[in-house]
């Protein structure tokens, strides 16, 4: 029994990991773009982006999942997105908005003098960004990003809202089929181990960047 549960949970965890990794891969660059939009000097764009971020951050991810999956069909009579694609769209948009706020905070917190010091030394814009600002921004955003990324691990469970089966779903099956509760506790082990690894990773990164102060 234990081994068949393990295998089933592993399969569910595969889905969890897939959502996790793909969300990061797409939401980080998109979040960077959104943060640039939110800092734009072009007012209409700035307010459009800010309103969008406000809506996404101000409503539950679960609601967004349901709307993205059923919305196009019910509102416009379009074909439904495949379930997994709908999950990815919702997660990427949602997390890109959260990340964008972290990026914006990190970028705006860098004193203007850092940029100007580079300018008067004759550095180009891109040299200033890559050689001076970037590492300072990264140092500032590692702690909030690690929080957000660990939240993402647990948010993946929401995928089941539109019947994309991840690890908890696979464990819950055993309640009905075999009257077993321990597979649910067992999923907790997966989460704990995975979040533990991430925590160690981010701790390592923070220590790596500890040699300077911003």
């Amino acid at each position: 029994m234990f081994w068949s549960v393990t295998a089933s949970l592993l399969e569910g965890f595969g889905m969890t990991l897939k959502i996790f990794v793909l969300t990061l891969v797409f939401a980080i660059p998109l979040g960077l773009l959104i943060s640039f939009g939110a800092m734009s000097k072009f007012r209409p764009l700035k307010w459009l982006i800010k309103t969008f971020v406000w809506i996404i951050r101000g409503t539950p991810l679960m609601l967004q999942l349901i709307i993205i999956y059923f919305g196009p069909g019910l509102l416009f009579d379009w074909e439904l997105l495949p379930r997994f694609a709908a999950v990815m769209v919702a997660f990427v948009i949602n997390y890109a908005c959260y990340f964008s706020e972290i990026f914006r905070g990190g970028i705006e917190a860098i004193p203007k003098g850092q940029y100007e010091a580079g300018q008067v030394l004759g550095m180009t814009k891109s040299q200033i960004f890559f050689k001076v600002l970037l590492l300072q921004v990264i140092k500032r955003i590692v702690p909030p990003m690690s929080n957000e990324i660990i939240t993402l691990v647990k948010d993946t469970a929401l995928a089941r809202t539109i019947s994309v089966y991840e690890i908890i779903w696979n464990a819950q099956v055993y309640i009905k089929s075999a009257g077993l509760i321990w597979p649910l506790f067992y999923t907790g082990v997966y989460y704990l181990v995975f979040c533990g690894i991430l925590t160690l990773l981010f701790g390592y990164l923070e220590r790596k960047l500890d040699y300077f102060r911003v």
Partner: protein
Amino acid sequence: MAILEISNLQKSFDKDTPVLRGIDLSLEQGETVAIIGSSGSGKTTLLRCINFLETPDQGTIRVGGETLLDASDRRTYKESEIRKKRLHFGLVFQSFNLFPQYTALENVTLASLLLAKEAPDYQSHHKELTAAIWEKGRTLLRQVGLAEKQDLYPHQLSGGQQQRVAIARALAQNPDILCFDEPTSALDPELTGEVLKVIRGLAEQKTTMIIVTHEMAFARDVADRVIFMDEGVIVEEGPAKQVISHPQQERTRQFLARFQGA
């Protein structure tokens, strides 16, 4: 011939409040000029215009006879052209603005190393080029008395030491004119001396400098010439000892009196 000639420089941030109202200023090679004046008189704005951090509304800036900026010229310049113009000047900020993730020595060499990469003979000579840059960086740090601190990061240095690194960093680009914006105002009083000493040394070596300062005794002793600014204009200028000790203008006198009172 004057190395720097500024004429009729004007700048306002909003229409009704001009900050610079026609500044004329020229500087001889090797001359040290101190600018004094009360808060809000436009001293920082002047230095920022000279260093292309602000765009003046009117006026011209010439260095060595070459017009670097003519505000009536509305062409947009390429980034590379503006950079070349910038390299005529150096600026030392009130708040140091060292790059925190680099050591003292790396702060001094960073911009030179990046610039060297663009040199046509970089590929063939990059070992010699970079070695020379590092060597020069060490020499400059020795000159500001920080040879032993070259591998420390800014947060491991005192304010006075940080400002001395910032001076070395500005010197590394060989500016024709080095500008200082209140280089000691952010420092504890007991740390100002070491920074002023470095600047004094530069003056003795005939570095061309514009120094905005509230250190009147320093301005009197080190500058060749002192300029008093008020409300965006130059009210009085002359030999340092004369302006500080025997000001001709009433406004200068009031300013200096208030200063001695404070």
